[in-house]
């Protein structure tokens, strides 16, 4: 067992974990933050996407011990004082989800995307979301949601 300490959604957290504990399992099982989903567990679907030091990463493809000292944000950490993040609100308004399984990962990727590309074209949105798979929506309304949110986020 190794002790890991990191900041998750602004809170300092620490736990003893086996070195082969994935970050996503630490988030879901130790911290009980179950908004981060596991869709494939083979690094392809992006449902497990969280931010580590501001960058979107697949938390099923990172060890908890690799996040030692890091600043982690999960889907639960986006809303502020009960108000949805503009990206969350935009998915709701634009029907950017159906079953919702991929949505936490989509939103975490989309927030990073808009940070890196403040006024993204449809092409940029589609290529930057290549690491997130959705089985329901056909992507059109996801792209629409991200575009609308980017305008609200001051892009």
């Amino acid at each position, binding site marked *: 067992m*190794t002790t890991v300490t990191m900041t998750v959604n602004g809170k300092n957290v620490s736990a003893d974990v*086996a*070195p*082969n504990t994935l970050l996503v399992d630490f988030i879901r099982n130790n911290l009980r933050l179950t908004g981060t989903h596991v869709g494939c*567990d*083979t*690094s*392809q679907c*992006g449902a497990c*996407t969280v931010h580590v030091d501001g*960058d*979107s*990463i*697949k938390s099923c*493809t*990172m*060890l908890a*011990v*690799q996040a*030692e000292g890091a600043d982690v944000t999960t889907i639960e950490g986006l809303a502020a004082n009960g108000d949805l993040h503009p990206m969350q609100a935009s998915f709701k308004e634009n029907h950017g989800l159906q079953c919702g399984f991929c949505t936490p990962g989509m939103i975490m*990727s989309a927030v*990073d*995307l808009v940070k890196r590309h403040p006024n993204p074209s449809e092409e940029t949105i589609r290529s*930057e*979301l*290549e*690491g*997130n798979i959705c089985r329901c929506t056909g992507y059109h309304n996801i792209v629409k949601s991200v575009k609308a949110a980017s305008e609200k986020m001051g892009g």
Partner: protein
Amino acid sequence: MYSFDYERPSGVNDAAASLGEDDKVLAGGQTLLPTLKLRLAQAGKLVDLSGIDELKGISSNGSELSIGAMTRHVDVADSAEVRSAIPALADLASHIGDAQVRNRGTIGGSVANNDPAADYPSALVALGATVHTNKRSISAEDFFVDLFETALEEDEIITKISFPVPESAAYAKFPNPASRYALVGVFVAKTSGGVRVAVTGAGPCVFRQSDMEAALSSDFSSSAISGISTDASGLNSDIHASAEYRANLVSVMAGRAVDAAS
């Protein structure tokens, strides 16, 4: 995953010293962790290189561009230094996998892994790059040996890759639509020593297309290579594409790369 121990040393020598026979170096983990999860590999201990500052960063002196082994794909793609010295390399990095993979995966990990469909090996071979390790310097052509095989010894760690700056260069890739890996990728570089054409994805290991190199050295235009084909025997055949299809893609991608580099 089988269980393993974990260490994060802060120097290359410490990392090399702590690498035992069953141990593995961990870089971005974008290949190694999926492989461990599928139990296709096992490690006594993972030695994480992320705490070693000397393995990170990009520098250039006009004639040579040097990239630390732990530099992530996103950092190569976004680097002003890479964009000005070898824009084709930044472009290649920006099309590896997806955004999340680029935020973790490193050039050292990609090169050490030598996946037959990886992008970077073509750039190293076409540009005549040198792979520097904690023990020696190896030319790219000697480094990539065969399918998933390199010249690296068990306890050898890549520290950086240095690229001579070419006159012009371009990379054209036909991505596998599901994985984004190269079904075929061709890197063309026009250097002071002649034109070099390196092909990834098509065969078990990156290779140079010497017929195209000869034709392009006397006439650097896509029409100069339009009649040159690649022998399909020995190329990869799988559910994604036959060897003949890949051989044809080599010509198509080489033509596109030459047009982009002209």
